[in-house]
């Protein structure tokens, strides 16, 4: 069962012990919580489970989550494409700083990610008075939720594309240019197909985070039932009302999303790995 040549040297008792520890640790910290979600959701039976979704507040939470992801993911996808072209195909001063800035949202706590938008657009914020005067609501309304979600999911696509595009050399693009293609044609027909799996991977991760974000959205949302609650926020509300079955029911949808994300992630990872390898020239043959 041990294909790795290194493992021949690890004694059997050690192997058994480590495997047992691994299974226990991962089982305890990963599998059990996941299972709990579904078990708690079905605690009062399948009927009660499905009844949770007939609640209009739950439905609007689902709609809002889909809407938010539906805006945030394409925006960040476009950004990722644009930024990776600039970064991977050109040399310029400040490039490494740009790359660091792109990673910034990862270093910031979700609550702080929401806070900064409250500071800008909240009632006491910079633009607060101006917005109030024009009856534009950002904080405690849907636009704020979308903005905060864009912020926290912003790096995902770019982070997948940039290293891959940097690794692939630019000869194909030069060839396309020399054959008369415009920049746009080159990007669309040559560059993009070469990174399609990494692109999809980034989109999958971006989407998972966009739908599941809690901290940042919680701060900007205002928790107005039926209006400014995404699914994660709705889960919180239900839980705090001790409506456990409904809370876990909605949570189970999110958990299913997480599982789908993991499956997509695993499938795409192997595609990306084979695609990034340089294609080796094959052996010789004679000329016809």
């Amino acid at each position, binding site marked *: 069962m041990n294909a790795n040549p290194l493992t021949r040297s690890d004694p059997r008792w050690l192997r058994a012990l480590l495997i047992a520890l691994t299974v226990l640790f991962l089982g305890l910290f990963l599998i059990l919580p996941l299972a709990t979600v579904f078990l708690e959701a079905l605690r009062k039976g399948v009927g009660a489970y499905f009844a949770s979704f007939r609640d209009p507040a739950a439905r609007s939470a689902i709609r809002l989550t889909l809407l938010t992801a539906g805006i945030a993911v394409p925006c960040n996808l476009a950004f990722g494409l644009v930024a990776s072209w600039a970064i991977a195909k050109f040399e310029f001063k400040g490039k490494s700083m740009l790359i660091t800035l792109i990673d910034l949202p990862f270093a910031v706590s979700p609550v702080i990610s929401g806070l900064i938008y409250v500071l800008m657009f909240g009632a006491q914020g910079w633009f607060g008075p101006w917005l109030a005067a024009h009856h534009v609501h950002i904080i405690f309304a849907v636009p704020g939720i979308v903005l905060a979600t864009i912020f926290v999911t912003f790096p995902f696509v770019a982070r997948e594309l940039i290293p891959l595009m940097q690794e692939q050399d630019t000869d194909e693009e030069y*060839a*396309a240019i*020399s054959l*008369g*293609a*415009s920049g746009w044609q080159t990007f669309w*027909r040559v560059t993009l197909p070469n990174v399609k799996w990494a692109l999809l991977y980034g989109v999958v991760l971006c989407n998972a985070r966009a739908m599941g974000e809690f901290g940042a959205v919680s701060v900007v949302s205002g928790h107005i039932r039926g209006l400014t609650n995404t699914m994660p926020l709705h889960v919180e509300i239900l839980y705090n009302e001790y409506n456990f079955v409904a809370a876990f029911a909605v949570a189970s949808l999110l958990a299913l999303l997480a599982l789908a994300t993991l499956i997509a992630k695993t499938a795409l990872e192997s595609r990306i790995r084979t695609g990034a390898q340089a*294609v080796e020239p094959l052996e010789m*043959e004679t000329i016809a």
Partner: protein
Amino acid sequence: MSIEARNISKTFGDFHALRNVTLKVNDGELVALLGPSGSGKTTLLRIIAGLEEADADPSSAILFHGEDVSASRAGQRRVGFVFQHYALFRNMTVFDNIAFGLRVRPRRQRPTESAIRKKVEELLHLIHLRELAPRFPSQLSGGQRQRVALARALAIEPRVLLLDEPFGALDAKVRHGLRRWLRRLHDEIHVTSLLVTHDQEEALEVADRVAVMRDGRIEQEGTPEEVYHRPNSEFVMDFMGNVNLFHGRIESGKAVFGSLVLDHAGAKVPDGQGARLFVRPFDLDISRQQNGLPGMKARVTRVQLAGAQVRIELSSESGETLQVEMPHSRFRERAVAPSDDVFVTLQDSRIFLEEQTHRGEVS
């Protein structure tokens, strides 16, 4: 369609890749740009193609048939560029690769899809790869990929064909085959071509004219025959093939290299001027006795019989290693063996005065 590059210079930071280079390729010619790495040949090619920009200089220009194209972009120059590592579009089939240049034309200039198909099929026939049209580049061998790259470049009916070490990444046998094929192709379609290579055999075999480059300058330009047999500098002679090198000096109108004394007809040279003698291995002969030709004593150290010619290594009186090449038939007449003491005589040679080594500064 002639190509003319005038007064081209290019620096990358502190590195001078090209120093005021001027080159002309006549209509229908195939010229080889030959030189070691760092000589600037690829840079010059890319500048002609429009893939790089030359340093700004009012006197510099790139002319295609007299028309200045320096200001137009790579796509507008209608050059066919063949990359060293093929640069085939890996996500497209062979067919789509070749058709690419035609498909990306602006709508008004774009041929119909059936016209494109016809053209691509013609080219596939030309490169003998018709059955491989639906394959992807990863499914082809190196030689096949390079042929597709060439067909792709030819599809746009380029005014000039520029090849950047096109066979560099291939195995020796494939390389030789493709070289001959390229020459035949050129004879058929007569597109003005410029080929960059570091392999002097390739340049000599394929090109109508050769330009030898070194350190950003053209050392010598001429037919393969001129460059090989009448090199104007040590660098060119040494680069074009194996040489035996002797150090000596000029004395009273004669060039003296140890026991070898040669007439030196040339400009007046002061006595004691250092000189170097370059002799090709096949311009040396071996004999048992002195026979009137200029020569030196030497002892045979090694005889290599495997190969198209016989290679003999000798050690001269002054301890220098000599290499002699001769056909098998002549070797059988000479019948020498290791440890034999013989005379090595010169048929032909080139003498370069020591200051001449710096005389490569032609543009």
